[in-house]
């Protein structure tokens, strides 16, 4: 620490020293203009801050303000009067909202354990020694689903689960089962969007876990191998503590992501059939852009934001223990 300070002091001295000795042609001492002033950091930061303000902060504040107004853009003549918590009250008593939130929760607890487990298995396989080239190839392959746009994942899903020519039914037929109208039945549609989500996000879990596993110092793993031959004990007692920070980040990201999951489901099922895949984001979109009741939709979105924050804080509180 002190050595760093000292080194910085030396460096500072080095950079300042020439300034005092440089003379301009006219012989007047001056500080050479190196294009770096007190405002330079500001200019470097400005684009990011500005962008964040425009597409992050401003819409959030706008939604917050809107959530306290009657704001139906299909009926502009009624104006946008301030109505306090009326929107929130109607949202909280809206059974469809609760139902869609329930569907979202069901979706979350369906996909997340599978993604975490599969991801962990893949990570453990990739962590084993040997087969370097194949593993490198597998790691690259894992990025493909992550890099695919949600809407495109939805389109792929529609092709896979198409009743007449989808590959899912082809597989069923191969094993002697009848074709199934995946997207036409409530359970099938729910399964289809779950499978597509698992397809897209398992690799992410795998990569996060793989990073965690590679954080375990080799000698610590070896010390444990000398004390136990159980792979499970090794995972539980030695590797897991290194995976927890990653797992926390994963749970937080996936919670927020599932709560706002829209594009993929919208492309595949539009929330149907019936309300089988009517996730909360799909419902909010319907309220906002089919009924044009932006006030209520904003209130719903704000509630969702609060829910996300609460869940994230819980995960951090429960899981996050930094391994020293």
């Amino acid at each position: 620490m002190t050595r760093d300070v000292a080194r910085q002091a030396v460096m500072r001295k080095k950079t300042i020293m020439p300034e005092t000795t440089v003379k301009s042609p006219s012989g007047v001492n001056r500080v050479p203009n190196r294009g770096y002033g007190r405002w330079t950091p500001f200019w470097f930061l400005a684009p990011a801050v500005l962008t964040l303000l425009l597409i992050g902060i401003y819409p959030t504040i706008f939604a917050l303000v809107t959530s306290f107004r009657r704001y139906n853009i299909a009926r502009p003549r009624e104006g946008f009067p301030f109505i306090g918590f009326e929107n929130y009250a109607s949202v909280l008593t809206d059974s469809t909202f609760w139902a869609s939130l329930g569907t979202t929760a069901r979706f979350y607890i369906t996909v997340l354990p599978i993604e975490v487990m599969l991801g962990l298995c893949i990570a453990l396989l990739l962590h084993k020694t040997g087969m370097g080239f194949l593993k490198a190839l597998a790691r690259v392959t894992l990025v493909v689903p992550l890099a695919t746009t949600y809407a495109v994942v939805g389109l792929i899903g529609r092709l896979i689960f198409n009743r007449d020519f989808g590959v899912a039914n082809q597989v069923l037929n191969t094993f002697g089962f009848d074709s199934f109208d995946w997207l036409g039945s409530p359970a099938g549609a729910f399964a289809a969007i779950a499978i597509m989500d698992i397809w897209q996000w398992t690799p992410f879990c795998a990569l996060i876990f793989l990073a965690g596993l590679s954080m375990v110092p080799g000698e610590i793993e070896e010390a444990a191998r000398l004390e136990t031959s159980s792979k499970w004990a090794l995972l539980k007692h030695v590797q897991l503590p290194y995976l927890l920070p990653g797992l926390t980040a994963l749970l937080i990201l996936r919670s927020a992501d599932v709560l706002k999951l829209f594009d993929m489901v919208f492309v595949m099922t539009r929330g149907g059939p019936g309300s089988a895949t009517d996730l909360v984001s799909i419902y909010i979109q319907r309220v906002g852009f089919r009924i044009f009741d932006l006030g209520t939709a904003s209130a719903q979105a704000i509630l969702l934001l609060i829910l996300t924050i609460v869940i994230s804080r819980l995960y951090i509180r429960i899981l996050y223990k930094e391994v020293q």
Partner: protein
Amino acid sequence: MTFLQLNNIQKKFGEMSVIKGVSFSAQKGEFVVFVGPSGCGKSTLLRMIAGLEDVSDGTLSIDGKDVTYEEPAKREVSMVFQSYALYPHMSVFENMAFGLRMIKLPEDQIKARVLEAARILQIEALLERKPKALSGGQRQRVAIGRSIVRNPKIFLFDEPLSNLDAELRTQMRVEIAKLHRNLGATMVYVTHDQVEAMTLADRIVVLRGGLVEQIGTPTELYDRPANTFVAGFIGSPKMNFLAATVDGVDGGSLKLSHPAFAGGSLTVASDTAGRVKTGDTIIVGMRPEHLTLDAANPVLTLALDISENLGGSTQLYTTGGGEPVTLVVPGRPSLNSGDGLNVGIDASHIYLFDAAGQALRASH
């Protein structure tokens, strides 16, 4: 009784051969040290005994049982790593208890064993701490404690002292020696530090390039090194070597010439009859601590370059016939750079090697 047996052990990483056939055996309770320069394969060999590296060829047995392909945990060996390798999220107690919990020992026995080990190593006050709250020396003790509690068949040490400062290293070295004496356990210890090897070992295995150069007690290696490599590696400062020419062979003695010799020549008794002929090159080895100043019958005539006062003794760096020669002499002789020195040595302390570096005659 042979307790640890390595039989023509080989290790290949792909095409590269790292251990090229090592055989040796250790008795129960013996303290064996693997020593050699970096990359000689000593750590790899230790890790193969532990089971952390696969054996490419050869067999390995512990306590009469072939464990060549046995899993590490089933070999009943424990290892102290260079980085200590303590589990960072566990307390000292948990670190030491982990292995015992894995074999499902009753909790009261675990506690008894951990407390006993903690008492031996004087770390009872640290049991509740996490490794990051310990100093290097304390971590080392915990790592050793983790080995002790398991009561293993063999203790393995992989350069355990190299991360400690000099004073602590000496202290821990003594403690490991005491531990060996008190536990009577079989220990295999890897180091590149020949002082650790000399002080700790019952027997030393000197390795170079994946091959055994010599196996023997510290005294044997010091007094009768098999070749110039072992002679140079064991002993500090290292042995001086002078490449001399054989001027004449006369029964039991050789007449050697080198510009550093007093009068240009030296006659040594040697029973190498038939193996050496006039005109051959012979490497003459002399340990710095065996050389004496102001000898009545000087063997070497040297010119002083630099002297280093070490307090109790003085290290002299000299040149003789263009070759560097180091001396360690007691006290603080008052000498100046450029002084000519008449240096003597007891004839029994002269080591002779052939041109390939193999010992011709070991003194004593």
